[in-house]
């Protein structure tokens, strides 16, 4: 079996299985944890609306915090938007997603994808530089932070190398790219990549609690 066949065959299947099982287990664990009912008299209704609003409002800091959080926010947005553009706008990725969902949409021009990928990679490298040098980030970082960075950066890097045909045959580079994505999938449920799901619950919960109190969310 060729490396490419392995990467997009059994390796991808195992990775997807671990991803789905881990995802379900981690979310189930939270749902199975006892829920505390707030018995206080609400100042106002609309808790559910407040919860949903908070899921979106936390995408942007309030003015009072913007100046001090600007660098981290710009990097985070560059990485997240860049990844979204590359994953959902790149033609090969759309074909890949369509192969198991049946969905399809028009890809973005290759040049846009290449620029987005390059910017994402630059932002990821800058983010790591910042994590290694900023006193706060240096102190609070752990294995999860570094490994998550690695498994996120590798698919971006290998994808760019594959497109540029640098370092090896295209098939080999593509296989490495898919393998790096498989590692990303396997790690996803174990580390902080889960914030993609848990942050929704966390923001919603805080939104509900503080909307009930009539406080700022």
């Amino acid at each position, binding site marked *: 079996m060729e490396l490419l066949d392995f990467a997009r065959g059994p390796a991808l299947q195992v990775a997807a299985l671990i991803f789905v099982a881990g995802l379900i*287990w*981690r979310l189930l*664990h*939270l*749902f199975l*944890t*006892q*829920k*505390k009912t*707030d*018995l*206080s*008299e609400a*100042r106002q209704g609309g808790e559910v609306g407040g919860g949903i609003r*908070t*899921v979106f409002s*936390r*995408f942007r*800091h*309030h*003015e*009072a*915090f913007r100046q*001090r*959080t600007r660098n*981290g*926010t710009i990097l*985070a947005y560059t990485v997240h938007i860049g990844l979204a553009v590359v994953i959902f706008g790149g033609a090969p990725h759309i074909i890949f997603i369509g192969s198991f969902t049946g969905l399809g949409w028009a890809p973005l021009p290759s040049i846009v994808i290449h620029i987005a990928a390059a910017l994402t990679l630059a932002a990821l490298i800058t983010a790591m530089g910042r994590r290694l040098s*900023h*006193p*706060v*980030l*240096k*102190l*609070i*970082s*752990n294995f*999860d*932070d570094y490994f998550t960075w690695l498994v996120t950066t590798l698919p971006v890097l290998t994808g760019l190398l594959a497109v540029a045909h640098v370092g090896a045959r295209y098939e080999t580079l593509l296989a490495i790219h898919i393998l790096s994505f498989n590692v990303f999938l396997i790690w996803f449920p*174990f580390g*902080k990549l*889960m*914030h993609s799901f*848990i*942050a929704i*619950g*966390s*923001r*919603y*919960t*805080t*939104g509900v*609690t*503080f909307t009930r*109190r*009539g*406080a*700022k969310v």
Partner: protein
Amino acid sequence: MSEVTEKYPLETHEQRLTVKDPHPRHDMQGDVDENERLRRAMANFAKNMNRTTATYMEACVHCGQCAEACHYYVQTEDPKYTPIWKLEVFKQAYKRESSPFGFFYRLLGLKRNISVEQLGEWQELIYDSCTMCGRCSLVCPMGIDIATLVGQARHGMFHAGLIPDELHEVAQRAKIEGSPLGATAEVFADRAEWMGDEHDTEVYLDKEQADILVSMSSIEIMKYPNSIGATARILNALGESWTFSSDGYEATNFGMMAGNSAWQKQATMKLIDAAINCGAKLVVLPECGHAYGALRWQGAAMYGKPLPFKVQHISEFLADVISSGRLKVKKVDQTVTFHDPCQVARRGGATEAPRVVMDALGVELKEMAPTGDFNWCCGGGGGVVTIHRADKLRYKVFELKMDQVEKTGANTVLSTCSNCRQSYNDAKDHFKWDKDMESLLELVADNLVE
């Protein structure tokens, strides 16, 4: 049952009411071995773990932005004051013991068990350098309410006997004597009578039936007793049926701040029982931040069911009676700024009420920047003002507050929290600052149209 010792006499004549003789860090209560301390710390931390707090524990991405909202970090730039770092040992314990993959962490030795020594080191971070003001909770991109988690960590620390001695002492006093600062029922009755004479008004105590039960904070009773007279004058001007109760007059809740749920419940139940016994339809809480959170938002949880009466902070009550036209006030020719008590505004949602009152008084309000829900904490909340060894750090973070006030150009700072007022006045003495903090309640009482 423990009793009040004389190890820490009260400093009743000083600007700030607390106990004398700070103990060197870190403090330890009780005589139990390390394993038992650890077991208690983790058991009591985990005891209140629910879906909300478990979600918070799982959501952090270590972005570090909470540091930028914390007055301790902003003023010192010491990374150890990063809010989420203050929970690091408890996060480790959670991951190892209760997280979805805890089994693997334990099996593979990926998360080491924490030690009593580590908990001791963290005592400063969980008590001395966190007022649970919740500013970090507002900035967190993941929406983690870090202040709630610190409160939960304090439960673990308390039961492990690892809290600052001064805070333990005042919390214990509250449990035994009914007040953290010596405001026993007898002392309160004396003060109530004195304030009745001083303000030439009737101060009702222990009426059998009343529509409103009023409470005070220990700081007001002992240091700012005019609050008693001011409250009485306003309620009498309104013709309300109201009373204080010897069984439930003290709204402060040091059990909550220290991290002892049983003591918290005991203090809360005194107010609840007193209100039920006199048939109160409303409990008015004093100018005290954490007292508001303790009864308004946590009281029902202590009671086990919804409270059979309404609860209002005094500023909410004043805003309501002024807005409805029941209470008339004279215009005050004064330029002021307003300090938002964190537990009433940011954590409690009553941010607009004092502004309604100030608007009615006609004062020229120069808002701080930032203000309202984003205002900086005074640095004295969460029991920090009781901890002597934290003074230096507290004064350091207060410089932020002084800068805010100076920039408004106002000479008077109004607030609706006696603990903030105490912190201000203590810092004012320390810095020989010329700005006064006054009570909004007292300003209203002094300008009633009677």
